[in-house]
Every structure is written in structure tokens, then in C-alpha cells.
């Protein structure tokens, strides 16, 4: 239980950083998605029940503070978590480049999913949104990928300090 609340608090802090500090930069729209990286970290190191519920909460928080009226992120983040859990034992995920690539692909895939959901539920012409793919989704995915190894390292260090457990590689079973 203590673990759950500490991780939830960490998620809230990351959301706060995303909505305040990262938004204060000049290129406001292109910023790394810290909560997505955190969700991937949860998928790598935590069991499906605890991590799944946390991923759902992370998505719920995203929905709460965004202009999104439907709650796309509660669904997409949970899905991202379970897909990442499924894939983590099938790929080699140690090392800078693999972690970058993994986060990059997941940001792109989630963007695509959100785009499809917006198109299906909000009746917005997709043409209006397609331009966003190149103007911000690709750069944002790239930035998220670039930042992810650093954050994974930081999360692992913080995790080993908080939960007093030996450090594990991200390929270790949760």
C-alpha cells in the first residue's frame, strides 16, 4: 500500500512538472511526456496489478487536467502499460539506444491511438489533425525517447532508495 501511494505521489509530481515547468519553455507544445516514461518504467519493473492500476490513475490524471472530455488517456495509458509488460521479456531493453527507441515507438503509437479515438468520438475532420503528426507528434516522440534513458536511470535510483531494494535492470521481472 505504501508502495502504491509513493508511486502515485511520484506520478502527481511528474504531472505537475509537465503542466508547469515544461510548459514554461518557449516551444510549449513539444515537450517530453514524463508520465508516459513513468508508465513504461512501471511496466518494466512492477507487477501487473499494482502497475496496471497506477497506469490507469496516471491516465485519469492526464484526462483531468487536459481539455479532453472523454478520458482517452485512462484507456491508452492502461493499454500502453500492458503492451509494454507483454513486450519487455521479448526484447533487449538495456542500453541507451534501445530504451530511446522503445519510448519513441510507444509515444508514436499512443499518439496514433489518441488520433483514432478523437476521430471516432469527436467528429473532428482528421485532415486537421494529420498536420499535427509531423509538427509535434514526431518531435515530441523523439524528445520523449531521448529523455527516457535518463529518467529510467533516475527512477531506478529513486526506487532503490525509497523501497530499499537492490537495483534491478529494467529487464528484470517485477
Amino acid at each position, binding site marked *: 500500500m505504501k508502495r502504491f501511494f509513493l508511486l502515485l505521489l511520484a506520478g*502527481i509530481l511528474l504531472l505537475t512538472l509537465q503542466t*508547469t515547468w515544461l510548459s514554461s519553455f518557449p516551444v510549449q507544445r513539444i515537450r517530453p511526456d514524463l508520465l508516459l516514461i513513468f508508465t513504461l518504467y512501471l511496466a518494466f519493473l512492477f507487477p501487473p496489478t499494482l502497475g496496471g492500476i497506477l497506469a490507469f490513475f496516471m491516465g485519469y*490524471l492526464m484526462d483531468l487536467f*487536459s*481539455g479532453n472530455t472523454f478520458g482517452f*488517456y485512462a484507456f491508452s495509458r492502461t493499454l500502453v502499460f*500492458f503492451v509494454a509488460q507483454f513486450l519487455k521479456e521479448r526484447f533487449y531493453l538495456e542500453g541507451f539506444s534501445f530504451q530511446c527507441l522503445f519510448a519513441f515507438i510507444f509515444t508514436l503509437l499512443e499518439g496514433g491511438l489518441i488520433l483514432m479515438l478523437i476521430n471516432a468520438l469527436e467528429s473532428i475532420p482528421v485532415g486537421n*489533425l494529420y498536420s*499535427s503528426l509531423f509538427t509535434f*507528434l514526431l518531435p515530441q516522440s523523439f524528445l520523449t525517447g531521448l529523455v527516457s534513458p535518463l529518467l529510467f536511470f533516475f527512477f531506478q535510483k529513486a526506487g532503490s532508495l525509497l523501497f530499499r531494494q537492490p537495483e534491478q535492470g529494467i529487464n528484470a521481472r517485477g
Partner: protein
Amino acid sequence: MRVRDFFLFRRYSLFIFIILLLLFALVLMSLRAQQRKGVEFFDALLMEICSPLQKTFTLVIKTAQETFQKYIFLVNLDKENRMLKQRIAELQEETTRAREVKLAFDRLRQLLQFREKNSPSMIGAEVIGQDPSSWFKSVTIDKGERDGVKKGMAVISPAGVIGQVLKTAPHYTTVLLITDYNSAVDSIVQRTRAKAIVEGKGENRCQLKYLLRTEEVAVGDVVVTSGLAGNFPKGLMVGEIKKVDKKGHGVFQYAELAPSVDLAKLEEVFVIMEPIPTPVHPQEEKAKKGKKIKK
């Protein structure tokens, strides 16, 4: 048999959990889609927990940025010129502070004048956070239900329309900006009085929908609120037309406008608590007078 069932359940329990969690997220989405609202109590509770953090972070960031801006250029001073440069720095700091005070004073005076001129039933609020996602456009402000803010209320600034209230918590509110895809404001082109709906287009741009092809609009035309629908009073500036396209077929033409407010740099906003009495446009006033004379 029962023991076997139990083991089967244990075997598939993780799979069932995954399906249930995803289904729960989908049910939540469909509920929101039907009612256009979420689990209000839970939403409000989470907003109350998270928003004070946002407020504190915003304050810390602003202070850090100000300090950084003031002192970053003073780090690598030459030893020989230290005294002189220190004096310059002090003077610069004083000037900056005085300028900041003057700017804040001007801004607040402008806000006060705007409020007195338009309606006493507006409350000022500070922007404490931006939208965490990049697909949607919203901001969080530090006023909520306890201050009388309700869903759908108009949010403006002296420069023009900002958006409307989307979600409320006791002390905090999420405001949907006019540039969001879900936003729509009934408006008119000030010069030609052509009616249209201003819809968000994402990238700090809006588009004019249902603008008749027969209407004459040009780049540079100002678009204002019509006052016909929603809580926006008539005559508030929405933006300036940046692009007009009459190519293609159809009843309507395409026009794009840039909002009059810089939505990326929002600091203070006003929430309109009651509809403001609609100011009469000079042309309409003349027309009314003309009719009276004819009668």
C-alpha cells in the same frame, strides 16, 4: 471440480484483471461520451489534491526564472571591473524591479478598468497550469465552485476571449481554450456583420465555420462574439482573420483566424459570473433610431 475451477481462475486471473481494467477505462470513456461529464466527485477530489502542487510549482518556477534572468549575466564578471559592474547590476536590478512594478501596475489597472467597464460580476483568477497533453488545449485556474465558478462560464481577458469553463473543483477550474478542437463560439465579423462559428484548430489558430460564401471577408478583419449563444457577451474580440479561402465548391467559405489573446502566455484571466448586458453596436443603434424616426 470446484478445486479445478479455482486453479483455472488463478491461472487466468491476471488476464481477467487486464480485461476488467481496460473495460473499466472504456466504460468510463463511454459514460463521458454520453453525459459529457466525468465522475464529478472523484474528479474534484483529485483536482483539489493536485492543483495546490501546480500552484506552488508555478510560483517557484516564476521566482526561479526571474532570479535567473536577473543574475545570469552577472556570473562571469571580470575581477577588475567587479565594483563597477556590481554597481551597474544594482542599478539594473532596481530598474528591472521598477519596470516590473510599473508593468504589473499597468496590467492590474487595465484589468480593473476592464472589469469596472464591463461588469462587476467577474472574478479574476490566476493561471496555475497548462494542459498536460499536446492534443488538447486547456489551462487550470485558481478559482473554483466555492468562488461561484460553474461549468460553461465564459473566461476572458482585456485582450479578448480565452475560453470557457470545462471542469470545476471547489477551488480550481479547468478552462477549455478557444483553440481546442472541442471549442465553439458564436461570432460575427465586425466589419461586415457576417455570422460564423469560431472553432478551435489546435495550433494557436481557429477557423470560421458556416461562414457563407456570399459574405465579403478579408484578411485583417476583426471577429467579435455575437452574444447569441452561451455565456459570452456581445462584442468581445475573438481574433483577426489571417487567411480566407474561397476555392472549391459549397455554400461556405473557409477562413482562419489568430486569437487576439496570446494563449501561450496567459497569466491572469476573468471568469464572467453573470451575462453582461449586451452593448449596442453603433450601426445597430443608428438603424434602431432610423426605425423609430420612420414610425
